[in-house]
């Protein structure tokens, strides 16, 4: 296949599906050939998923994980976007707080687990706090960067047409930054979904992360461990697709010229 040629419609679905099927086949035969007693085959995992669904555990765990991400990520967006826009708009303020932000930002949310348990105890709040931390900084940084890099030509055009500084922020800078905000939210949601699993292994007793660790601890049910892992992957993909869709909206598409 020539890489310059536009793939045909059926090809765009056929090859990825084939590749995924091949991966599952490889997994299946690897289990069969090595005759392992511990690691489950795809069929075992499928049975595991069915069992979890029957007992309604899976839906509850998915709902709990999504709820935690929704609160943590929602709070991060609710605070991160306005604060980021402000810091980008007032470079003097940004210069004051930026060093502190850059110091806190590289700390893995995992390292915050003990601190969050001191703050909030074992439970939902601790997990939500960790997700908030993990999502807040990517959103903040994307917004600041977006505002700072708005081409001066746009601001000057806004000034020329007699807009007040607030109107320039509202009608010029904000729409100019929306693609970058969407990009920041997409990255933040990806990280939040990674972190919720880790947080649920330690701070709470429900959710997909808890399902993974609990399935292992209570009877080494690796079929359920892998089933939970696959669910985590599938939901993470679905969440990412939502944000990829947002990037295709006409009023923001210009900002994603060469992104997927």
């Amino acid at each position, binding site marked *: 296949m020539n890489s310059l040629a536009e793939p045909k419609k059926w090809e765009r679905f056929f090859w990825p599906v084939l590749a995924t099927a091949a991966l599952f086949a490889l997994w299946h035969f690897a289990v069969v050939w090595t005759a392992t007693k511990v690691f489950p085959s795809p069929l075992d995992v499928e049975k595991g998923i069915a069992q979890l669904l029957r007992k309604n555990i899976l839906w509850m765990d998915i709902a709990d994980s999504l709820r935690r991400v929704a609160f943590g990520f929602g709070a991060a967006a609710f605070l991160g976007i306005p604060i980021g826009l402000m810091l980008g708009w007032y470079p003097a303020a940004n210069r004051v707080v930026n060093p502190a932000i850059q110091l806190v930002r590289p700390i893995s949310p995992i390292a915050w687990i003990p601190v969050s348990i001191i703050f909030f105890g074992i439970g939902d709040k601790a997990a939500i706090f960790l997700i908030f931390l993990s999502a807040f900084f990517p959103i903040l940084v994307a917004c600041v960067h977006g505002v700072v890099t708005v*081409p001066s*030509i*746009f601001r*000057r*055009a806004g*000034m*020329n*047409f*007699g807009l007040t500084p607030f109107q320039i922020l509202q*009608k*010029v800078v904000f*729409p*100019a930054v*929306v693609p970058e905000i969407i990009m920041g939210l997409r990255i933040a949601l990806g990280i939040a979904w990674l972190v919720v699993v880790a947080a649920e292994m330690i701070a709470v007793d429900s959710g997909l992360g808890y399902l993974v660790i609990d399935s292992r601890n209570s009877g080494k049910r690796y079929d359920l461990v892998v089933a939970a892992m696959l669910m985590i992957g599938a939901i993470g993909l679905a969440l990412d697709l939502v944000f990829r869709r947002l990037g295709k909206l*006409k*009023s*923001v*598409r*210009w*900002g994603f*010229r060469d992104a997927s």
Partner: protein
Amino acid sequence: MGVVTTPPAIGTKLSVDHVHVVFKRDGKTISVLEDINLEVRSGEFICIVGPSGCGKSTLLNTMAGFLAPTSGSVNIDGEAVRGPDPRRILVFQERGVFPWLTVEENIGFGLFRLPRAERDQRIARYVELVRLQGFEKAYPSDLSGGMRQRVQVARALAVNPDVLFLDEPFGALDSITRLLMRGELLRIWEAERNTVIFVTHDIDEAVQLADRVVVMSSRPARIDRVTTIDIPHPRNISSPRYLELRDAIYEQIGLAYTL
């Protein structure tokens, strides 16, 4: 320093009086504009030409109020320019249209104070003037470079400015589109009769468009000379008079007209 403002001559729209612009960079001071004086009549089409980086854009930005002169003053209708103003709009070389707005939203951008019906009417009028009917709902990323510049010109004209500043507006277009756009601009100018100050590094473009061509020297930029183009529109660009005027400017800039 005390600047004596003399009352404007009859018909003078814009006057530049002893404008100096000095930039400070890395502790060095660079004189960009040196004692610029210019009077532009109402409804006149002025082209400013000069070598790249000579300071023509700086002069334009100073006239448009985006840059305060280090000394001297710019007056429009006898009033000192203190900042950008919707009565005089600057058209940028490229990427000046807002990519998140459609063609009609871009053209209506400066009309936010008008009631809706009037705004829609004006938008329709300027869409037609720049011949973009059928593209009202298109986004700039779906348009060609020439069409984007039409949107920018329409957006500027829609607020009914007295003065239109254009900063190499066709500089990023291919030569055929550039030629077509010049014709379009003249057609629009004859309909609207704004005062136009047009910066270009293309001498042919200047002689084809302008009533007067202002030739600037390299840094620090001074006005070398002002040539009146006394050929009525539409101009025959192979007439002896056209070639004579054009070649005189080439010579002025120090380009022997042979390659």
